[in-house]
Structures are given as structure tokens and as C-alpha cells.
């Protein structure tokens, strides 16, 4: 599922540029703040899914605890802003760094755990963080908000405070982050690092025997993923102007972005983006149709989709589409050839 078609990287790049232009234009056309909000969430989840994929799809490190990085990013930038008036732009970067440190401390010893066991250890990581924040009101002089969370005071339109009234600004920022993250993922995949991660994912010991420093490269993909994910968390905090452990540091959030990546297609760069743009708008349509019962039905649908994807479409939708399209093209070509051949003779 990870065969790289590196003979013609130009195609995907053109598509990417085209999509960028297309997407950048959207806010100018659509002034409806609600639709903008939905698209922002789709872009955000796409961003998170792409970041998660860097470590899971590329290196095979299946994490069910990425919400930990989301939460760390969100909390660090928020606390730095509330307590020390640090602009969230810088806070975002620091949040990323803190996540990298946490990633190393937690991830590194757990790398030797196989598949499921690594996944479960990441679950423990998220649970611990959630428990700690929920149960701790103060860390020294700093207010952590405990279970109620922290509110960021509304400041209207302010670049320095990373707050905007018109959602278009958020839209462009997350679009830029998604484009940047995708470009990074893509260039990683096409590079030596990408090849090494692929080797580690398929057969760690064989990779080792070919000179690949398995731990180093696992750590690299893990930390990059953590950093990017955390920055998304900071963005989310600024979007909602609210951070709380029950959603941000939750296992369901982790699982949600895993589902999105799985649906789209693990291992490919575009797959997670497809997944996000399929599932998030679906969720929104449900919300408008169902109102109050929405949250539960959406979760049930997500759960069912997860089961169906695992059972029937483990490579994700992108791969399925690719194969169908390739099969159709081949069929058309051979049909053309045979009919052409018949005419000739």
C-alpha cells in the first residue's frame, strides 16, 4: 500500500498548487461563517491526520494517543499567553517543542513494543495527561484550569493575539498549515528518510541489516509528527478560545483522527486529506439534520465506518479509487487495442 511512484512527482505537485489556489479563493466567495467554520474544521483534521500519518503511515508507529500532543500544544500556548502574555504565535512553537520533549520521553522507551502494545502505551500516555490536568488546579502559581479548562479572553481582531472575528483569517492560516504540513510530508516521503521509514514499517530487522538506524528514524518521524500535531492544537485553542481536558486530551479525539486517516488511506500523503473532507462535512450534515442527538449518532457512524474500513477497505479510499481508476483505464486501453486490432485485420 505504500508503493511510491517517484518517477513522476510533478503530477501531485501540480494538483497541490491547483488546490491551493482553489482553496485560497473560497473565503472570498463564501461569506457564510458557518460553512467557513466547517471547512476550517475539515482543514484542521486533515492537518492532524497528515501529521499523524507521518509517524504511522510512513513508519508504522501506530499511535492512539496523538490527542496528547494536541492537548500539550493547546495548553502550552494558552498558558504562556494567559500567564506571561506570550503571543500565541511563539507559544505555538514552544508548544511544539514541549511536545517533542514529551514525545521523546514517552515514545522512545516504547519503541521496542510491537504494534498493538505500542498503541496501548500511547493510550496510557493520553489518559495520564488527561487525568493530571483534570485533577490539578495549580502548578505552582500557574492556573491549569483543572476540569473546567481555561478561557482565553476575547480580544476582537488581533494578529498579535492570534484572534480574528472574521473566520476567513483562521481559514487562511489553517490552509497554509495544511499546505506546509503536506509539503513536508511529501518531501519526507520522497527522500532518504521516507525510504528508510518505509523499510522500518515493513521489516524492521531487514532495515537494520541494511544499515538503517531504526531507533533514530523512528524517533525522527515521531518527533516531527508530535511537533506538527501540537501546533494544530495551539491553532485549535485560538479558534475556540477555550481549552479543556475532556475533549482536547481525550482518547475519542485521538481515535477520530485515526479514523480519518484510515478512511482516506494510511501511507499516502493525500489520503488523510481525502478522509477529512469526506467525514467532517458528513458530520456537519448530520448535525444540521439531527440537532441534539447529533453527537451520539455521529460517533456511532464513525465507529461503524471504522469497523467497515478495517474489514473491507484497509488501504483506505484513496487506494481503492486509485486501483479502480487504474483498472478502468487498463480495461479501456485493452478494449480499444483489441477493437483497433480487429479493424486492422
Amino acid at each position, binding site marked *: *500500500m*505504500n*508503493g*511510491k511512484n*517517484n*518517477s513522476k512527482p510533478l503530477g501531485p505537485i501540480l494538483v497541490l498548487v491547483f488546490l491551493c489556489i482553489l482553496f485560497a479563493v473560497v473565503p472570498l466567495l463564501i461569506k457564510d461563517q458557518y460553512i467557513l467554520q466547517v471547512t476550517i474544521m475539515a482543514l484542521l483534521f486533515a492537518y492532524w491526520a497528515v501529521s499523524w500519518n507521518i509517524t504511522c503511515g510512513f513508519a508504522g508507529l501506530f499511535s492512539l494517543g496523538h490527542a496528547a500532543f494536541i492537548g500539550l500544544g493547546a495548553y502550552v500556548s494558552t498558558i504562556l499567553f494567559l500567564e506571561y502574555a506570550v503571543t500565541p504565535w511563539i507559544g505555538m512553537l514552544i508548544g511544539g517543542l514541549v511536545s517533542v520533549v514529551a514525545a521523546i520521553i514517552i515514545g522512545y522507551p516504547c519503541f521496542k513494543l510491537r504494534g498493538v502494545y505500542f498503541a496501548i502505551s500511547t493510550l496510557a500516555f493520553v489518559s495520564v495527561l488527561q487525568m493530571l490536568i483534570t485533577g490539578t488546579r495549580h502548578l505552582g502559581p500557574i492556573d491549569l484550569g483543572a476540569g473546567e479548562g481555561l478561557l482565553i479572553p476575547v480580544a476582537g481582531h488581533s494578529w498579535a493575539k492570534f484572534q480574528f472575528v472574521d473566520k476567513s483569517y483562521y481559514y487562511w492560516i489553517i490552509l497554509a498549515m495544511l499546505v506546509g504540513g503536506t509539503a513536508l510530508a511529501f518531501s519526507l516521503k*520522497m*527522500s*532518504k528518510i521516507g*525510504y*528508510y521509514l*518505509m*523499510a522500518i514499517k*515493513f*521489516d524492521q*530487522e*531487514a*532495515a*537494520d*541489516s*541494511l*544499515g*538503517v*538506524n*531504526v531507533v533514530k528514524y523512528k524517533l525522527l518521524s515521531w518527533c516531527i509528527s508530535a511537533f506538527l500535531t501540537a501546533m494544530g492544537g495551539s491553532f485549535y485553542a485560538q479558534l475556540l478560545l477555550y481549552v479543556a481536558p475532556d475533549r482536547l486530551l481525550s482518547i475519542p479525539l485521538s481515535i477520530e483522527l485515526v479514523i480519518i486517516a484510515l478512511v482516506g488511506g494510511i501511507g499516502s500523503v493525500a489520503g488523510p486529506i481525502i478522509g477529512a473532507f469526506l467525514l467532517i462535512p458528513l458530520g456537519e450534515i448530520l448535525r444540521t439534520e439531527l440537532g441534539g442527538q447529533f453527537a451520539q449518532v455521529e460517533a456511532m457512524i464513525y465507529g461503524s465506518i471504522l469497523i467497515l474500513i478495517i474489514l473491507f477497505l484497509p488501504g483506505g479510499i484513496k487506494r481503492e479509487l486509485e486501483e479502480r481508476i487504474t483498472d478502468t483505464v487498463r480495461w479501456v486501453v485493452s478494449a480499444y487495442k483489441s477493437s483497433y486490432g480487429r479493424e486492422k485485420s
Partner: protein
Amino acid sequence: MLELDSLSKEFGGLLAVSRVRLTLNKGEIFSLIGPNGAGKTTLFNMIAGVFPPDSGKILFNGRRIDALKPNQVCKLGIARTFQIVRPFAEATVLENVMVGAFLRTSSVNEARRLSRETIDFLGLGSKMHEHAHGLPIGDRKRLEVARGLATKPELLLLDEPMGGLTPTEREELIDIIRKINEQGVTIFLIEHVMEAVMKLSKKVAVLNYGRLIFDGTPDEAVKDQDVIAAYLGEEYSVA
């Protein structure tokens, strides 16, 4: 080039390798034979760094390597293949070999170029963009060798490369191994197929129950009493 000095390895009370001393000289093709379970792959695993010996030393070009990890051993110039091949199943032949090639370069183009050369050398040129899991066993064995070769080793450890091949494929592989050796790569071969051993090797060592019972030329080996005794009653493939 490679010196094994009194290597021993025990697994749960069973002595898999017992005080083995061997010397390989640069440019040789050296074969290691012996009945199943004699400890040959264990020996390879120790050289390759998969696990350390319980006692003894391994010296490569005068430098001790017995404490090194597999990727470090590979960087020093020793590549190995596995008895049961381990291709990166869902990647193409080219991608597989590129993983090996990246050891000596960070440039994708350079790695690709080197890989293409190696793939052609191994006769897999026509299958470059096929996925590894779809290949027949003969091609997979070649892929395994190509991948290791792409790391530009000084010493290549081949663990039963002839296994599962047809006679024609064996001939071809013997030829390829000879050509690799002619390029300057020292070859350390574990094999059951005597034809390959006789045709290729300059020197042969025989392992039985973890102990070295013979070390010399192939012609002497087939006449040696201990070697014959070790194989009596053993189903042994000659063709």
C-alpha cells in the same frame, strides 16, 4: 579480513556455537557448510550483529565488531542476506534496492542510479517497478542479494541463497556470485547445495553441532573422515 576468534553462543543451555575459529581473506569466496542446526546461521547472526557472542571476538579488518548493532556492522561494510528472504513486500524492486543504496548516499537520484545499476547487474532489470510480493522465489532471492549489494559492502554474507531455486536458476546465481566476487567483494556463503560450494569456494569450513570440524579446500573436505561422518545418514542435496 574477517577473523572469528573462539566464538561461542548458548541458547537456553544448548551450545549453538562452540569455540569457532575462522579466518577469511580478502577477495575469497568462503563457504560454511554443515548439517541442519549445526549453528551456521547463528554464526552469521553474530557476525552481522543481531546478537553478541557469549565469548570470543570478531574482528573485521583488524577492528572488533562483536559488540556492534546490525546497522553499524552494515555501515562498516558487511552486508547480509536472510535464509528466508525478507523483501519489503509492498514496495517495488527499485524501492527495495534503494533502501540499501541510501547507506552510501543521501541523494535520491544517486541512490536511484546505483540501484538501477545493481538491479541490472543482478538481471532483474525488467522487473524494476514490480512489487516485491508478486515476484517468484528466484527473483526474490536476487532482490535480496541486490539490496545487500547496493550497500557497497566489502564482505557479503549469503545465507543459503540457492534454497528453493531450480537448477537453471542456481546456475545463474552461481554465475552472479562469481561476478560479484570478481568486482572485489569477499563472499561468505552458507550453503547446502554442494554444487555451488564446489564451484565457487576457495575455502570451506564445516560446522557440526556448533563445533568447527574442518577448515580447508573443497577437495579436501569431501575426502575428510569427520566431514563424511557428520553427513552420514543425512539427506544431503547434491544437485
